[in-house]
């Protein structure tokens, strides 16, 4: 420094040096500041701070064993930009080759409006259709990725599952009832349905077509202990993949949403009601030889009973006597019968989990006439699901359970109430078993499975009154009688045999019930009983329960 000063070359004079130092210091500060800004305010940090917008995949629906019934897969939808389409008619005519059902005139009109910049051409396009459209090389079209709801089993349990709209919203069935839960994603919705049993039931209803002309059919298989619905079907089958684009009679769920007069399968309820009221014992006898007038109706038996002059309650059920049922109901009166039917949930008001059965159609007034007809299943319309649950007390020893559609069943909303004594339940169960062994339900006797059940044939109500040529035939059953586990209900709407003229439930619904039980029982882990053990059900059950 001294040498520089001495030579007169003041290159690093204190002032200049300070200026340079200050500039460098400022530069340093700027660079460090900028570095700090990059570190603390970088786009990476900004991104990390933002919530991640995840696409929620609609939850699957599976059966009780995890078999997939509904899922969501990636899919495509086709959109168009009319603003860049020069020849709408050429585009629409080409597209029609891929989508034959497309409304060409309507689409051409939409694509001709060049002010529009977006038009949906087709929602939910399959991969094959997508490739076909791409091969056309048309202008102004583009594919947008959209998830699609898929039903791998086709129409299996179609009525129960329901379907979603093109936007993925649940519109029918369980898809609608549990829409919020499904739309939130997460673990699958696990049903109590067993897809194999469901298939057997649907095959049974479908198989009815081979034997009868049919207008419709419904079936239910319920675990009597838990209320778990193992299968529930309505025929004609509905295909969820069609998203409701079906005739009304196909879309109608006859097992849940339709109410009907189910006929003589009501008689065991009438007998149970009278026994519970202390107005009937199994030894009481009734004269059913001549029609009786009760209130404003004359009750007749279409077929005389073997011992019509001295029929027991068991005979009334086994041989299906309308007169006997009406006389038994008369012992408890309209109020007594009404109270019992209310107790077993047939008069509505009960709330259960999942699909709600249709509200019953009640008689205008509960008088003697209503009582007499309801005693044998006319004058009160209920849904098959609601009715099926009324047979669970005969299987549980007197307790009714509510239907359950979701697993796990343990700890679910299933309600269990005592509606009759164990003695009454066992006695009526024995009568039902006798009906299958000796009475009108013989064709329902699936060997090894001790079917206990009752036939029902109801004339359909028309504007001109009851039509004897149009029937609802039904069969309600509990099996196996010695250790009851399941309730089965089969209902056929206007079943007309293709050969012969027998169209009562003894020849129609009973045969379908037998086929369903024989095939479903092994799938439901029901151990068959050797044929030599086909003795009275109540006795068998009683001895099993008292044996240590």
């Amino acid at each position, binding site marked *: 420094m001294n040498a520089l000063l001495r030579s007169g070359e003041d290159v690093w004079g204190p002032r200049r040096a300070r200026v340079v130092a200050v500039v460098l210091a400022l530069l340093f500060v700027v660079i460090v500041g900028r570095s700090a800004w990059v570190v603390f305010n970088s786009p990476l940090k900004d991104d990390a701070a933002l919530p991640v917008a995840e696409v929620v995949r609609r939850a699957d629906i599976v059966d009780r064993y995890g078999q*997939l019934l509904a899922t969501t897969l*990636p899919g495509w939808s086709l959109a168009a930009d009319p603003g860049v389409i020069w020849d709408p008619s050429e585009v629409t005519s080409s597209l029609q080759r891929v989508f034959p059902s497309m409304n060409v005139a309507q689409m051409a009109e939409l694509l001709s409006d060049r002010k529009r910049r977006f038009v949906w051409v087709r929602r939910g396009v399959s991969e094959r259709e997508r490739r076909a459209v791409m091969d056309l090389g048309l202008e102004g079209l583009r594919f947008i990725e959209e998830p699609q709801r*898929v039903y791998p089993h*086709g129409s299996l349990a179609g009525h129960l599952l329901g379907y979603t709209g093109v936007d993925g919203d649940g519109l029918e069935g369980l898809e609608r009832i549990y829409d919020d839960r499904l739309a939130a994603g997460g673990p699958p919705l696990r049903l109590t349905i067993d*897809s194999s049993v469901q298939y057997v039931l649907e095959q049974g209803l479908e198989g009815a077509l081979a034997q009868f002309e049919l207008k419709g059919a419904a079936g239910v298989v319920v675990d009597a202990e838990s209320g778990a619905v193992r299968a529930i079907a309505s025929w004609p089958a509905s295909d969820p993949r069609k998203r409701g684009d079906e005739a009304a009679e196909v879309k109608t769920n006859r097992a849940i949403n339709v109410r009907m007069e189910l006929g003589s399968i009501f008689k065991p309820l009438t007998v149970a009601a009278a026994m519970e009221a202390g107005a009937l014992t199994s030894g009481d006898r009734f004269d059913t030889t001549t029609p009786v007038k009760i209130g404003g109706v004359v009750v007749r038996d279409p077929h005389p009973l073997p011992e019509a002059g001295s029929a027991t309650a068991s005979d009334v059920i086994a041989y299906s006597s309308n007169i006997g049922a009406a006389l038994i109901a008369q012992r408890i009166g309209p109020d007594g019968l009404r109270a019992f039917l209310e107790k077993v949930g047939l008069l509505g008001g009960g709330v259960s989990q999942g699909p709600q059965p249709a509200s019953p159609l009640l008689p205008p007034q509960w008088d003697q006439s209503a009582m007499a007809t309801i005693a044998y299943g006319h004058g009160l319309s209920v849904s098959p699901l609601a009715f099926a649950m009324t047979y669970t007390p005969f299987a549980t020893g007197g307790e009714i359970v509510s239907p359950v559609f979701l697993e796990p069943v343990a700890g679910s909303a299933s309600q269990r109430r005592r509606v009759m004594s164990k003695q009454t339940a066992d006695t009526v169960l024995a009568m039902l078993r006798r009906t299958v062994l000796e009475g009108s339900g013989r064709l329902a006797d699936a060997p090894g499975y001790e079917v206990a059940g009752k036939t029902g044939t109801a004339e359909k109500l028309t504007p001109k009154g009851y039509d004897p040529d149009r029937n609802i035939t039904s069969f309600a059953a509990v099996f196996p009688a010695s250790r009851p586990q399941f309730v089965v209900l089969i209902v056929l709407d206007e079943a007309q045999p293709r050969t012969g003229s027998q169209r009562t439930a003894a020849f129609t619904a009973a045969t379908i019930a037998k086929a369903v039980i024989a095939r479903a029982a092994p799938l439901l882990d029901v151990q068959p009983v*050797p044929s030599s053990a086909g003795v009275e059900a109540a006795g068998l059950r009683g001895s099993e329960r008292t044996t240590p």
Partner: protein
Amino acid sequence: MNKIVVIAGLVVVAGLAVAVYRAKLGAEETQGRIEELKAEAAKVEQDIAIMRAEEAYLTRPERIGPIARERLGLQQAAPDQYVASEALKQRLGEEQARLPPLPEDTSVAAGPAR
């Protein structure tokens, strides 16, 4: 002295700039990799969903039933084909009793469990 400070400062600034640049580049690369992995995971999930749907489609009862019957000759067991496990044990015991006695040293290995 000032010269050394200035040069040192410049070196620090340059080093800092390079470090920040590399850190940022690394972060972007990591971000890209995360995005790739996320996309890959989503693709795998989609593939699994498609395969599960295909499995469900292929194992549906209406397809499996005819295959089991026609190609494998299987049919539903009749009620009289069911035997209680106690009866099976009894029958196995009877069959064993009819068999000739086995040498002592092999009796365990050649027991009914085989």
